[in-house]
Each structure stands twice: as C-alpha cells, then as structure tokens.
C-alpha cells in the first residue's frame, strides 16, 4: 500500500504524545502537591499499563512494539494516576492494568473498545476509594484547563462532547452545580476521555448530544443521590452513555444525499 506523500494531520502516535504533553502542567502540580509518592504512583501505573498492553497484544497475536509505540497505554496510566491521587499504589496498578486488559484488549484493541479504559478503571477503583467529600483542587483544574485549551488550539480536541457537558453544567449553575467546576476529575474526563472517538458517537451532532446527556445524567445523580465523588459519577455516566453511542451513530450517520 502507498504512503500518502503529504500528511495533513498528526498520526496517532504523535497525537497521543501531544495529549500527554498537554497533561504536563497538571502532572507538575500533582507532584508539587503530593511529593515523591505521586512520582512512584505514576511510574508504577505506567509500568503496569505497558505490561498489560503488551500482554494483550501478545495474546491477540499483534506486533507489540508498534502497538506500544502509539502511547495509548501510557496515556491511560497518566490519566488514571491523576484521577486517583490518593489511591494506594497497588490499587492504582491493578485498576490500570485491569482496565487496559478488560476494556481495550478484550474488545480488540484501541478503536474497537466500546468503553473507555480510563472511565472503566476509575469505576473499578471506586469501591476502595476513601469516602468523604473531595475538596476542590483549583490549581490542578486550572492546569488541566490550560492543557485542554492548548489541545484545542492545536486542533487535536474534538470539542463537541466536552462543550455539551460544560454547557449543561453552566446552565445548571442555579441548581448548585458550581462546585463541579472545581473538580479536576471533571476537566480530565471532559478533555481527555470524552474527546476520544472510539467510545463516543462519531458525528459532531451525536457528540454534542452525548456530552449534554452525560452532563444531565451526572448532575441529576450528584444532586439526587448521596454519591459525593463527581469523577466516579461522571465516569459511570460516560460508561452508561458509551453503550448508547452505537445507537446514536446509527441515528446520526447517513450516507448523505446522492448526487
């Protein structure tokens, strides 16, 4: 097969690298807040993710290095360790590896996974998380927002779903959704998980609907139940809605008018 002579957009590997790059400020802030243990958590989560990914690739009889090189496993590990700053290292490693094996490799690799491994991993870890209202983490949120905006500027953020979510959160401000905006988990899930293509509808319209539905579900859960953790709630909503993504695709995707 032929290589296109001109590439007009970054490849998957460079896309994932840039997504990691956009997380650097957030990583720096977390290291500053939590100190060396955070570094240890990050390193072990990454190792576990890479291991799980290579295992999965070997099991599916795929070339390991080209698969790992895409950097998706690493991105998953970094996202999870940012989402679970206070989890024990073994728990973090377990849910990272488990999510990658169960939700990515079992479904047949990146692109075909119906559920996003990060959202899945967060949910896996939820039962063991310390209860109690997580405090708002304004610096981290701001760092994530900056990273997201950078991605947007680079044209790497598929912005429809995050926009739908934010719109709903903003509209629901009178109901008392304001505290959500201080949660770093919201920004992480919005900018790095909801913008992923495989677990969301593919058309712009479908994505907008998906984001709005996720926002509404999340806010109703948070306000109507006693579940205090916005991140876990949102992850659950995302997983729930991912199951409906194929349906949304069916509804919004058409061959278009014949000419």
């Amino acid at each position, binding site marked *: *097969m*032929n*290589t*296109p*002579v*001109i*590439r*007009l*957009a*970054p*490849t*998957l590997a460079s*896309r994932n690298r840039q997504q990691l790059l956009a997380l650097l400020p957030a990583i720096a802030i977390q290291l500053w807040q939590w100190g060396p243990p955070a570094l240890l958590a990050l390193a072990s989560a990454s190792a576990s993710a890479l291991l799980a990914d290579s295992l999965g690739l070997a099991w599916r009889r795929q*070339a390991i290095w*080209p698969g790992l090189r*895409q950097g998706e496993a690493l991105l998953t590990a970094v996202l999870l360790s940012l989402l679970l700053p206070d989890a024990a290292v073994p728990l973090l490693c377990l849910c990272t590896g488990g999510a990658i094996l169960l939700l990515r490799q079992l479904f*047949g*690799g*990146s*692109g*075909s996974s119906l559920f996003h491994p990060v959202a899945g991993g967060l949910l896996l870890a939820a039962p063991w998380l310390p209860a109690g209202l997580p405090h708002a983490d304004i610096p981290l949120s701001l760092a994530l927002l900056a990273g997201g905006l950078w991605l947007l500027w680079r*044209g790497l953020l*598929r912005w429809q779903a995050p926009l739908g979510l934010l719109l709903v959160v903003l509209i629901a401000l009178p109901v008392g959704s304001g505290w959500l905006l201080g949660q770093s988990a919201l920004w992480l899930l919005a900018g790095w998980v909801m913008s*992923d*293509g*495989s677990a969301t509808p*593919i*058309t*712009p319209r479908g994505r907008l609907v998906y984001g709005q539905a996720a926002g509404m579900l999340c806010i109703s859960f948070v306000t109507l139940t006693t579940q205090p953790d916005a991140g876990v709630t949102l992850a659950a909503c995302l997983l729930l809605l991912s199951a409906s993504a194929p349906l949304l695709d069916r509804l919004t*995707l058409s*061959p*278009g008018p*014949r*000419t």
Partner: protein
Amino acid sequence: MSRPSILPAHTDPGSQPLLTTPLPAQLRLWLQGASCCVEVGQRVLKHQLLAEADSEFGVAVHAPTSGHIRAIGPLPQALPDAPLLDGLQLQPDGLDEALSLPAESNWPALSALALAMRLQDMGVMGQHGPLLPLAWAAKASPLALLIINAVENEPFLQADSMLLCEQAAAVAEAMAMLGRILQPARLVLAIQQEQGAAINALRSLAADQCWQLEVIQAPYPAGDEAQLLRALARPEESGNSLCLPVAGVHAAGRAILHGEPCISRIVTVSTALKQSHNMRALLGSPVADLLTCAGLSSQQHALVHGGGLRGFALPDATIGIHQHSHCLLVRPRQPALTAQPCIRCGDCASICPSQLQPQELYWHCSRQELAQAQHWRLADCSQCGLCSAVCPSQLPLLDSFRLASQQLLLAEQQQCAADAARQRHRFRQFRLERDKQEKAQRLAERAAQQAAKLAQQAAEPTSHAEPTATAADKQAAIAAAMARAAERQQQRPAVAPSVNSSEREAAIAANRQAAIEAAMARAAARKAAQEAAKAAAADAPAMAKDEDQNKPGLNQQQQALIQAAMHRANAQKAAASSSPASLDQDKKALIAAAMARAAARKAAGDETEQDK
C-alpha cells in the same frame, strides 16, 4: 481544521526553464481503446499513426519520434493495481525523421462531431478518453458554458502553470479555435489564485479575447471537474456545460491549427515542494529517463506518480509516461508504515469535500462489500485523498476506494459484454455520420469544380436530357444500394477484433489482399462507369429521336454497373471471410465502397452534365 490552512500553498514554477528530455532509448506507449496498425519490426516516422481508436473512449497513438517497433504486447500501467494493458515498444533511431504535417486550412468549417473525431485521431486526450466526448459531440446541443480548467492546487503540481507561462499565446489560440467551432455562450478559463505567474502571462495577452479569466480561491479539490462546474456554472447553465483540461486544449490547438498529433507533454519532477524541474517529455518516455534529466537516480528513491495527495507509488522506473502523467515525485525510501485500526475520530468525514463517511466506506471496501460501499456513495468519492492525509491511524483509505472503484468498473464491464458490441456499433455510427458529412461536403465541392470546368467546355448543349438523367440517377441509386449492402455485409463479422499477434498478421495480409481486390474492383467499376457515360453520351442524340431505342443501351449500362458492384461485393466478401474481421479491413472496404459510390455518382453526374 480548515483545508486552506493545512495544505501547502501552490508554488509557481518560477524562473526555472522548461527542460527538454533527451531522446530515450526506448518508448513504451499504451493502447487504450485503440487498435494497432503497425507491425513488429516496421520502421515508423515521427507523427506516424501507430494505433487508431477503435471505441468511443479510445484515442489514437502516434509515433513520438522515428524508429522501429520492437514489440507489441501487454505492458504494466502507471496505475495502482491495474492489470497489464496492451502497448507498443518503439526503439528510436535518433534521426527524428518526421512526416510532413498537413495543417487543416478550413477548420472553421468543422462540425463539433468532426472536431471531436479529429481530436481523437490526433490522440488528444481529456480527463477520460478523447478530449471532446463523442457522445456529447454527436448530440450537438448548444453549449452554454465551456470551462478550460487550468486550476492547479494539488501540492507539487506545476505542469499546467508551466504550460501557461510558456505557451499562453498558443493556449489562447486553441481556446479561440474551440470557441469558434463549439460556439459556447460563455468561455471561461479557470485558474487558481496562487498561480501568479500563469495569471500574469494570461493577463499580458491582448485584452480583446473571446474568453474570461476566472480566478478561483477555494481550496484544494476546487480544480475537480464537478467542483469547478458547481462553482462556475450558473443554474441555467449547469445542464449543458463542459470542462476541459488546459493541457488537452493546448494539444487540441496544435492538432487542429498545425496538424500536429499529441506526442509529448510537460511533466513536473519534484523532490520537495520548492525543488522541482519541469520538462517536456515525449509520451512513452521511461520514468527513469525523466529522473536522469532532473539529475536524480531512480535507484535510491521511491517514486510516486501524481501529486501530493492523489499520487500513488510506481513499482518500477521503466514505465512510460502517458498523457495524464503530470507529475512525478521522488521521495526518500521509507519503511512501510503499519496502519493502526480506525479510532473513529471522524476527521476524515469532517474534511471530505464530498461529505462522505470515509470510515464507513473503508470498512466496507476493505471487506470487499461493494454493494454496501455503493450504498455509502463510493461513486461520489472524487478520490481527492484528503481523508488519507488526515487519518491519524494512517489507514490506506484512498487506495481502498480506488481499488474498489476499479473492481466495480471491471465488474460492470464484464457484466455487459454485449454493451461492448453496442459501443462499437455506436462508434461506427459516429464515424459514418462524420464520413457522410465530409463526403457531402467533398462532393459538393467537386460538383462545383466540375460544373465550372464543364461550363467552359460546354459546346454542344442538348435539350433532351431528362430521361437519361433520371435513368442515370436510377443506376447510381442501384449501385449505391449494392455498395451499401456490401458494406453491411462487411460490418457484421467485425464484432470482436482480436489482438493476438498471429491473427493480426493474418488480418494484415488479408487487408492487403482486400485492398488489391478492392482496387481492382474499383478500376473495373470506374471503367464500367466511364463506358456507361460514353454510351450515354452517344445515346443522348439517338434518344431524343426514339425513346424505345435507348432501352437496350440503358440495360447495357445497368448491367455493367451491376456486374461491377457484384464483383466488388464478392471481392469484399471473400476478403472478409478469409480472416477474422479487423477494423482496418472494414474501413478499407468502406473506403472502397465509398469511392465506388462516388465514382458511380460522378459518372451519373458527368452524364447529366454532358447531356446538358
């Protein structure tokens, strides 16, 4: 992600000169919808006809230089995954001896159909097949809008800009010629805003042109026929407008105004966006020769045929260039990339200018589900390559679409083999129609000449011409009818011309035989006609006296003519049955029949003239 910002801008050829490639050691020419009319080993001269079109979509092939035909047979094509195609190998002898070129002096009298066929015979190609589609030309509906497409906005392409910079006047001449014959209500030359040098070259021409310059600003696939028509045609014009590539128009100008068949084209050889050479190369020159001319070697590089988005890899450098080889890219060899699975990012769908869903299309095309692919509008894909260029997973989207379209096309062709016969029949009718038009013109001219001559000679006018004239008319009609019958007999077996070399030789031998026999028949016919004319002239005074007396004379004439016609028909039938039918033979028979008819008509005409 908007297209204009991410596509590299068009680069002008700048001040670089147009190179001319040295004569290659071998030329490889493809025969596309054309049947060969030379033999292996034969020496041919520059501009000599090597193959003539045998279908509505083929074009003739002419010798780019003088030399010997070395082989006739299947050659690899410069097309991805395309089957071998029949071709010719010509070994130049370095003398470059050319046939003299008869320029068409009364081209303004050509009809649209005659122009289209003349261009086909001159090997001038458009987007698909002959520059002017024959079916369109035969309809001869008034043309509302004629677009000459000089838009060049795919990265790396420069050939059209170069052509305009070098030959602006010739292009303008050609456009004026087309405007004169086709009579479009509006004649537009479309060009991209970035082609500054070409625009300047055009603007420097005299202001009183019959065409307008339209400067296009839209991004990349705007130069596609469909997009251009959408952009430039007013609603009322959209039904009957035509879009022609500027290179073809230039070649058409050379062909019609100077009688020069299309044997070369401008090719851009490019290593990087700012590093390119433009050269005029003979059709059929091996790619390697072009690279050498640009100072590159074909060994260490990967070759791409075409521009930056539509180009495809060329398997080897011995392939000859053809009329659509506008660009050759020379790239450093890279390891084959491993495509990742589709991550459903949707970037391909958001960039697709035809609003398709390339990811769905790819899913079906890569699984050979062609019916589903058609449902996802494979037919509307303009194969612009933008989706491949943005796909983060580097999936070979364009390649799979191209392959699937090719398969569909092939299936279509196989499905209606009967269609081919119809095709050929239709094609022959175009020819016959044109021949009829031309013959009528020629006869009218000849009649006028003869009338003038006879008016000088006319010394003994007789008044009782009517009966003889009608009798002569009748004879001519009979002869013509018989000739037509012979013709029809000729046409029937000519359904499937074969390309097998031994059969071809047999056909050529049979042709010669047929030609000799036809010539003999012609001579006999002419003699008979002359005798008949003489007899008629002798009879005329007698006839005036006694009507009954001229019956035997008439019978004699009639018999002579009938005999001649039957002899002719027999000779042709023998020729036809002696070999599998070939088109040449047909044509020769047609020509013979036409000449016999003309002779008969002339005889009749002479008679009437003399009788007057």
